[in-house]
């Protein structure tokens, strides 16, 4: 008798959940394990960024407009996309496939809006002269300390890597959800729920990227606007 068949014979009381110790299917458990590993990827990147920031003079260049306004609207888009996704999963659990598809399409819309806004925001910074290993010259002038220590040129590297990897996750998520929306009638409820887990994770990561990358780098005194 196979192990699986034996497991089926154990009553639930043998080990709480019996053959389903977590009471979730193997695919959902797999997605959770992927989320744990991807969390560590983003944690490592954010801690690497914090390491560099703590050991260097770091520029704080983001103005209220466009950077903070754009990133705040992007945060609103992602939070709203999570809400529409959870509505979609909820509809799917009731067997309302059409409702699930409608809410998943709304989720994709917010996800694409996030990417478009993010690319516009990247374009602002790139046109200002920010590159992965260079700061715009006027940033260097403004953020050099009175001791003559210049700001770290790695600002761009950390910014583009972390936000870029996150944007890649949003884009992959939008493609994933498009497939789920297209095939929702054939898919089981659990499959829809698993795609929801991935999408909420992407939202969750942004909840750390937004304050650490954007809010912590606000140009509070307007140094770049009027300081040079």
């Amino acid at each position, binding site marked *: 008798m196979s192990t699986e068949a034996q497991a089926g014979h154990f009553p*639930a*009381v043998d080990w*709480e*959940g*019996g053959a389903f*110790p*977590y*009471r*979730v*299917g193997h695919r959902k458990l797999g997605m*959770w*394990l992927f989320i*744990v590993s991807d*969390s*560590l990827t983003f*944690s*490592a990147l954010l*801690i690497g960024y*914090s*390491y560099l920031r*703590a*050991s*260097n*003079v770091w520029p704080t260049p983001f103005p209220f407009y466009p950077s*903070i306004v754009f990133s*705040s609207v992007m*945060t*609103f888009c992602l*939070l709203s996309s*999570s*809400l529409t996704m*959870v*509505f979609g*999963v*909820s509809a*799917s*659990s009731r067997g309302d496939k059409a409702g699930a598809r409608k809410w998943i399409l709304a989720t994709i819309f917010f996800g694409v809006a996030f990417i478009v806004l993010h690319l516009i925001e990247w374009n602002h910074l790139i046109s200002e002269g920010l590159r992965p*290993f*260079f700061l715009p*010259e006027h940033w260097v002038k403004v953020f050099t300390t009175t*001791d*003559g*220590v*210049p700001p770290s040129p790695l600002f761009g590297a950390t910014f583009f890597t972390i936000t870029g990897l996150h944007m890649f996750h949003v884009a992959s998520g939008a493609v994933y959800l498009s497939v789920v929306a297209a095939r929702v009638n054939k898919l089981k*409820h*659990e499959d829809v729920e698993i795609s*929801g887990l991935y999408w*909420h*994770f992407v*939202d*969750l990561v942004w*909840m*750390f990227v*937004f*304050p*650490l990358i954007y*809010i*912590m780098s*606000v140009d*509070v005194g307007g140094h770049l606007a009027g300081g040079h």
Partner: protein
Amino acid sequence: MSEHAHVEEHFAGSNKLFTSIWVWLLVLTLIEIFLAYRPMPIHYMLVILLGLSIIKAALIMAYFMHLKFERLSLIITLVPALVICICLLFVFFPDSFRSAGLRYQFKEVPPVAPAPAEEP
């Protein structure tokens, strides 16, 4: 003790609950943006922002990702290991502070345009 040995299809939580979580997440985000323009030491700012982010992450995991309604064994398997691994990464910070001290004690003025990173 549960007798369920099958995968449940039921998805707990009402749309009203999820909407209220979404409102809370938006409020916490607005607080973060408001804090950005309050003058305060960077350490306080970091602690408050991370605190708010952890609350937001917990709300998303508990309600949107449905972890609150899952079996405790799943939560205990996933969350503590992740938290411990992330905390272990903090072991690098003393080195970061040390290198900051080494780098800036000479107060030299390096060139404005740094040398591009060359591939070996």
